[in-house]
């Protein structure tokens, strides 16, 4: 946010009249192009300029990165990956040159990363791990000492300026590795100094043994005391689930339920990386061939990030720069080999013809002479092959970007059977209906996925939204969705809900609807309220909505709200009415009656359905309480629920008539302020049509 604001002010200062919306939309592509530049310099640092160029080209179109940096995706990662790569580049530069300036630069890059994304924990654990590997492989040097110390100390102090992070760098278990390696580095330096002073090998070794045991002991005791006393907090669930992937599924269902947090299948790797998956092991081989401080770093970055990408689909993004860099090394090295083969051909032929076979070298030179044309043709063919592979990669990337990562997420598009494009604009239809047909302070209950959209486009208060900070609140909503209608009604009254919104894909075949997400609602609700048990909704461990479904499933609120009146609808030619196209079955319970809710709106393709929560009883308490006094009044008051209607009614419950026990219909009094007439009220159509 700060970045976008700074760019906006900067452009305004230069008198460019831009709108903040344009700045926000284009922030991610702008930083993606900056990442390309950094990738070039990084490649140059690790290998040579050729590898840098190839790396820049690869990362510019790699789908793994484009998926989170399209124009319009205004999220942390657009800026964070740039900061990540910048920090790594500056650190490797610092290790290579040993200069304090580059070390401080990497600390500033780290500060930018901390302020951008919670994934900075990856940096603060990868860099100490890298330093440890360098120490183990005997590559300790003054350059490493200067680079790491300056980066760690200044980076830590800067990171503490971010209020959200606070003192986590000294208190949280996730950051302890960096501190441990910091002290280890001091130990190494101290030992080097002592060795220099002592001059005697045996004494030094004895001293070394004593010091190492003391240091390890002190370190272990400190860590133990810190963890036991609670000062050092253990790893938070978010990051612990990366180390132990099965943790989230059992203990934190709300993290496990996000579709991006699922483990990765090979098809997602292929989709996002294409030929880079072949080039990655080859690049690793080249790095191992020419080991240096920089190549060790990129190998470690690549391996750790690939492991995390395997654990969680979303983290393919973090692995993308490493994979692109390593693949670039493979491409650059291979093409260099081939082209040198092509070029030395002419040279060898000249020397061969002038000097002839001379001495012992004759055999090795004569052989290439004899097989010259074969090798030259082979090299040319291989170059064409490499060109073909890279062009296939480019075609794949552009295809993926145009098909999968270019759609707005609020308007759905599909291709019909004849190839024509069908647009489903149901979300916006429903949100604008909410905006125009409900009172301004109505509260909408829906699953948290739609919270921000309802707030922004429908302009109504929601119960839970995408900022999934309050797990208990979300679990309450989940419990309401998975209970029978009566219990759910009690919960909705206690939350003061006026409208319920569900997303239903049975008519269109849209498979990201609430019925498919329902098991997660059950799990999250069951995580806080043990009364909700997941096996109640399953039949033999299977999740079904047809006739063989569990009775609790067939009568829960989500089922009723999704399939209300659906049993009369014919959705597909040749199938019975009530055929759910998303699940591919005929629903089990077609005769649904709603007692406490009534249907307020269903969009044209039945994707979004909005229901109104009816007032408590249709009995007018005013009429009941009138005439009672004293003890009788108190007794009556205790036995009815709290809300009672006022004589003049309010916009939800309508007026009461003294003589009648029913509320007057509140429908016409519900128009919000921005609606001109309220003569029309949406009612369910008398006849349902099937779509062919």
């Amino acid at each position: 946010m700060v970045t976008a604001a700074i760019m906006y002010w900067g452009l305004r200062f230069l008198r460019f009249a831009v709108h903040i919306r344009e700045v926000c939309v284009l922030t991610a592509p702008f930083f993606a192009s900056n990442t390309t530049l950094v990738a070039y310099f990084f490649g140059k640092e690790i290998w040579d300029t050729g590898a840098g160029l190839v790396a820049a080209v690869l990362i510019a179109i790699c789908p793994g990165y484009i998926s989170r940096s399209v124009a319009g995706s205004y999220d942390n990662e657009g800026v964070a990956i740039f900061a990540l790569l910048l920090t790594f580049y500056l650190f490797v530069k610092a290790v290579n040159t040993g200069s304090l300036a580059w070390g401080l630069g990497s600390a500033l890059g780290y500060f930018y990363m901390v302020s951008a994304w919670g994934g900075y924990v990856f940096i603060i654990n990868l860099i100490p791990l890298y330093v440890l590997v360098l120490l183990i492989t005997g590559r300790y040097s003054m350059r490493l000492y200067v680079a790491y110390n300056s980066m760690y100390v200044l980076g830590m102090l800067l990171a503490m300026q971010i209020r959200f992070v606070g003192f986590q760098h000294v208190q949280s278990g996730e950051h302890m590795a960096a501190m441990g390696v910091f002290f280890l580095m001091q130990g190494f330096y101290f030992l080097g100094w002592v060795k220099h002073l002592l001059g005697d090998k045996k004494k030094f070794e004895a001293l070394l043994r004593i010091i190492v045991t003391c240091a390890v002991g002190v370190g272990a005791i400190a860590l133990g005391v810190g963890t036991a006393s609670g000062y050092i907090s253990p790893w938070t669930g978010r990051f612990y689930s990366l180390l132990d992937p099965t943790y989230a599924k059992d203990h934190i269902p709300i993290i496990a339920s996000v579709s991006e947090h699922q483990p990765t299948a090979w098809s997602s790797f292929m989709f996002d990386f294409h030929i880079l998956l072949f080039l990655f092991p080859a690049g690793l081989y080249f790095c191992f061939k020419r080991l240096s401080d920089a190549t060790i770093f990129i190998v470690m970055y690549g391996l750790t990030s690939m492991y995390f990408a395997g654990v969680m689909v979303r983290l393919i993004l973090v692995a993308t720069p490493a994979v692109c860099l390593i693949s670039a090394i493979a491409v650059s090295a291979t093409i260099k080999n081939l082209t040198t083969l092509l070029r030395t051909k002419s040279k060898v032929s000249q020397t061969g013809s002038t000097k002839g076979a001379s001495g012992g070298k004759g055999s090795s030179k004569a052989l290439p002479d004899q097989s010259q044309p074969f090798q030259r043709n082979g090299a040319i063919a291989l170059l064409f092959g490499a060109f073909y592979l890279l062009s296939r990669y480019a075609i794949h990337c552009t295809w993926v970007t145009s098909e999968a990562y270019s759609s707005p997420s609020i308007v759905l598009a599909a291709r019909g059977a004849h190839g024509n494009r069908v647009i489903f604009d149901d979300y916006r239809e429903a949100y604008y209906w909410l905006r125009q047909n409900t009172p301004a302070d109505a509260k909408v209950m829906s699953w948290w996925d739609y919270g921000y959209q309802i707030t922004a486009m429908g302009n109504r208060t929601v119960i839970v939204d995408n900022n999934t900070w309050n797990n208990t609140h979300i679990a309450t909503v989940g419990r309401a969705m998975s209970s029978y209608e009566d219990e759910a009604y009690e919960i909705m009254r206690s939350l003061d809900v006026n409208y319920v919104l569900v997303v239903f894909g049975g008519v269109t075949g849209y498979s990201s609807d609430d019925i498919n997400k329902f098991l997660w609602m059950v799990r999250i609700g069951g995580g806080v309220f043990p009364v909700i048990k997941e096996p109640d909704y399953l039949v033999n461990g299977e999740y079904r909505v047809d006739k063989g479904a569990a009775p609790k499933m067939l009568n829960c609120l989500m089922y009723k709200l999704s399939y209300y009146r659906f049993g009369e609808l014919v959705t597909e030619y040749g199938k019975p009415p009530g055929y759910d196209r998303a699940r591919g079955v005929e629903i089990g319970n077609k005769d649904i009656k709603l007692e406490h809710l009534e249907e307020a709106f269903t969009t044209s393709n039945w994707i979004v359905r909005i229901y109104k929560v009816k007032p408590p009883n249709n009995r007018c308490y005013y009429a009941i309480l009138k005439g009672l006094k004293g003890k009788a009044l108190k007794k009556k008051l205790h036995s009815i629920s709290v809300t009672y209607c006022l004589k003049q009614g309010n916009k939800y419950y309508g007026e009461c008539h003294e003589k009648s026990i029913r509320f007057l219909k509140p429908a016409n009094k519900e128009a919000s302020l921005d609606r001109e007439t309220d003569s029309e009220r949406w009612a369910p159509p008398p006849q349902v049509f099937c779509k062919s």
Partner: protein
Amino acid sequence: MTVFSLVLLTYFMVVSGIVYDVIVEPPGIGSTQDPYTGSVKPVVFLPGRVNGQYIIEGLSSGFMFVVGGIGIILMDLALDKNRAKSVKVSYATAGISSVVIAYVMSSLKSQCGLSNGVIVEFYDLGYSHLILWC
């Protein structure tokens, strides 16, 4: 050398989707029933989703990737050192053929998902959700 082979093994396991296999526990291979004859036929590729796989499908694809990578390594070994000519030639041919086979297999597999048939795409809140048919 040993480190590198360990690294390759780890890469093979990660790219085959072993974490997915451990958590989601899909069957080794899928099966459909022929509607007319009633016989059960095996299904190798998981239809209908981008981020899903059967175990054998994952392992074979990961193997293809590793084979392709090794092919490029073999090509480099063939070019660089002063080995006996026959060894160089064999390395070269093995390398080139590995790469070609691996690439062709992978593109065949992904064609089954990515570019054939009717593609209905929906952009879920966060991750693109392609529903594909073979």
